């Protein structure tokens, strides 16, 4: 019995309940600052300057609801791209909207734009491509943001892109919408699946990442009509694979190489670093795959999952049927139905000593741990192609609304082909 218990604890986290709940103070501002490295902050955490408006802060349930909007949108965008080649041209069969939802856009970085530079906090998103910020004179509408709105007329380095420039036509793949034209200025429009959108002038400007890392003539959207779930932030930093993403625009400088560390909400700051500083020890690599139908997403291959040291019985075809993307803007990992079912069954077995409670939005495996000081939680490991074994941090296993509602932080897709 002792040996069994020892083995069980080896494959489990034993933690104080209080450590599962969001911290109320920013515990550190250190982060891993390197060359071309930006500080990453959780939008709703205690280290965020954007989270002071507590009255308008979203609830965890709202964050999860927004997250589902984003996932629905990504699914429909990929399904739309997939169907496009198999259908004859017929406008009636095409959805009227595409593009991914911002969801709760949890993490942001602060960059400098213009000359002199103005600091702007932008949601960073590997699931979209166009970088944009709200711009004066806000012809139609600008939502409230923390920093002063960027005013291109006060910058010595801003210029508009003309409608006839080949750069203007690149907007089609980056936004999913054909560019417009106002007088001679190229117009972009990007609409997200949750009805959020930004419309404005397509321009170029000096972008300052760090004091020593400057990108001249960076192409971005200067938003004149911006509405949706962006509140507090100044816009979005697109890190997808399209030509207009920051990653592609800086390919000569950073070689399409970037890395980040997302802090857990309670633990201070992380980083977003461009370029290979050669200091990433202990990193294991899995092939990065490209889907020709949806080339701007980062696809990877999950091969297996273990819960509490037990390898789940999941056929590899379950993962390969629809594939998997990695996305910095989606909060909760979505698994194929069969994979999630297997995970949930094993997790519930290993947690059978704790009382279950109501679901939290999309999270259906929740526990009331209010009567416990410490709990023992099964470890979860993901295995990726290339023999890459990733042990999730405890913050990646549980999502806690309160001590009385602590949930398994995974959800299943509704369809195996999603």
């Amino acid at each position, binding site marked *: 019995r002792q040996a069994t218990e020892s083995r069980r604890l080896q494959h489990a986290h034993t933690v104080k309940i209080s450590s599962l709940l969001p911290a109320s103070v920013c515990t550190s501002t250190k*982060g*891993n600052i390197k060359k071309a490295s930006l500080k990453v902050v959780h939008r709703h955490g205690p280290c965020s300057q954007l989270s002071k408006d507590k009255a308008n802060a979203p609830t965890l349930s709202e964050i999860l609801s927004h997250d589902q909007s984003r*996932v629905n949108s*990504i*699914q429909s965008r*990929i399904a739309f791209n997939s169907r496009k080649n198999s259908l004859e041209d017929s406008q009636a069969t095409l959805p009227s909207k595409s593009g991914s939802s911002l969801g709760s856009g*949890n*993490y942001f970085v602060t960059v400098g734009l213009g000359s002199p530079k103005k600091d702007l906090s932008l949601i960073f998103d590997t699931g979209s491509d166009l970088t944009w910020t709200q711009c004066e004179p806000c012809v139609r509408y600008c939502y409230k943001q923390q920093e002063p709105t960027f005013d291109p007329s006060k910058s010595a380095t801003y210029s508009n892109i003309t409608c006839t420039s080949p750069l203007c036509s690149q907007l089609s793949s980056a936004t999913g919408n054909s560019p417009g034209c106002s007088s001679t200025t190229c117009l972009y429009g990007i609409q997200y699946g949750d009805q959020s959108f930004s419309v404005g002038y397509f321009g170029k400007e000096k972008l300052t990442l760090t004091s020593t890392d400057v990108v001249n003539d960076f192409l971005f959207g200067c938003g004149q009509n911006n509405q949706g779930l962006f509140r507090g932030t100044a816009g979005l930093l697109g890190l997808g694979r399209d030509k207009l993403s920051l*990653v592609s625009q800086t*390919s000569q400088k950073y*070689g*399409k*190489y*970037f*890395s*980040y*560390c*997302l*802090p*857990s909400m309670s*633990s*201070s*700051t*992380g*980083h977003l670093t461009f370029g*290979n500083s050669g200091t*990433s*020890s*202990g*990193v*294991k*690599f*899995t092939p*990065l795959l490209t889907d020709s139908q949806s080339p701007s*997403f980062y*696809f*990877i291959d*999950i091969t297996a999952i273990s819960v509490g040291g037990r390898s789940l019985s999941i056929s590899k075809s379950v993962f390969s049927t*629809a*594939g*998997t*993307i*990695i*996305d*910095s803007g*989606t*909060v*909760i*990992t*979505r*698994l194929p139905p069969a994979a999630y079912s297997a995970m949930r069954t094993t997790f519930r077995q290993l947690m059978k000593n704790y009382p279950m409670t109501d679901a939290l939005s999309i999270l259906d495996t929740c526990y009331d741990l209010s009567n416990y000081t410490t709990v023992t939680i099964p470890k979860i490991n*993901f295995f990726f192609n*290339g023999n*890459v074994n*990733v042990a999730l*941090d405890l*913050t*990646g296993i549980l999502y806690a609304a309160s001590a009385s509602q602590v949930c398994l*932080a995974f959800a299943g897709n509704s369809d195996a082909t*999603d």
Partner: protein
Amino acid sequence: VGIFGNVQQQTLEVVYDVAGGKLGFGPGKCS
């Protein structure tokens, strides 16, 4: 598609070597 979301990426070092066609996971670097 399945989606590997940001809650599960927390505290991991996630490395995008897009030109090299690979994505890396490393032990936590931001705590």
